[in-house]
């Protein structure tokens, strides 16, 4: 739960969400696409770099990326399990 809040803060502080408020989003909220946080492929570049800089996490392929970026919960779980910082 704490990591989800941390990720929401990280995203809203570093990615242009067009003024959207992330407080209503939870673990089940998709990260990409209209139904969730609304991030697109260019935001993915920012997000991947943020994960690398803040947690030392690298994502090697789309197979892995698809599972990790499914929603906020899967991303938080991956961060918790793999963070180096």
């Amino acid at each position: 739960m704490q990591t989800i809040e941390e990720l929401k803060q990280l995203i809203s502080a570093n990615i242009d969400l067009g003024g959207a408020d992330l407080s209503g989003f939870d673990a089940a909220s998709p990260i990409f696409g209209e139904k969730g946080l609304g991030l697109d492929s260019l935001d993915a570049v920012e997000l991947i770099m943020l994960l690398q800089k803040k947690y030392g996490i690298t994502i090697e392929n789309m197979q892995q990326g698809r599972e990790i970026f499914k929603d906020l919960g899967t991303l938080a779980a991956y961060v918790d399990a793999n963070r180096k910082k």
Partner: protein
Amino acid sequence: MTQSWTGASLASRFKHRFVYALIFIGGRFLAYLFLYPLVLAYTLSPSMRRKSRAYIQRRFSPRSAWQFFKHAYRLNLTFARTLTDRAALGILGRVDIVSSREDRALCQRLADEHKGVIMLSGHCGCWQQAAASIHFFNSPKYIVYYRNPKDNDKMVHEHRSAKAPFTFINPAGPLGGVVEMMAALRHGGVLCAMGDRTFGAAGNSLRARFLGGSVALPYSFYRLAACTGAPVAVMFFPWLGEGRFGAEIAEVFTVPDLGPDKQNYAPYAQKFADALEAFCVKYPYQFFNYYNFWETN
């Protein structure tokens, strides 16, 4: 959407196979002979002339229908020759690549920095052969490539049923392929992409000046360069005559991290547009974007 290109081949699968057969039987020369009437027939087609009209008007300002026709014919003939040479490379395995010692050394220096390299080219000259043939980058190569199901041109390795000498990254894939692109650069790879083709939503493009008008160019490669620190090498591959093409570095630059506002990266897209314009001035019949590149929508 800013995407007004299709990626579909101009010629049918049968015509491609016929040219492949000619190359196999009589080599490149026999295939070239066949191109004269074939290209004439294509150029007589109004729909074909429409595809090249915007470029010819801007590049040559023809004063009569006849002048326009001559420019269209020369443009189409050069394109057909580059495609024939690509097939000949695959079938016969022969091509000469002309490059300067300085450019080769620069490529190697860039690769040796181990930050990856974003190699931007355009739909001009012999871009198709380039990825399969340049060996100065002693690093794994990745190609950002969307293949239209109606693309009938065989790639060089497909003529030999061989494994591709590079890895494809599909920009139509999940997240536009950015996960793979970033991984490729992180491993010091050379990411080859077309700097003159937008893909997807209008938000993914930047406007730049090109041949007196405004065109949409992709933005993502400049943001990728800024985020990863990978240098951008703008390279073009002019057709130099039968079975010969050049590999020329037009520009090398790094992109500082200027934040997520895409307009901050417009000067870098403009650098690409300027390099492409210089190419079109030097090689006027080698710009092969067969659609209205200047169309705004």
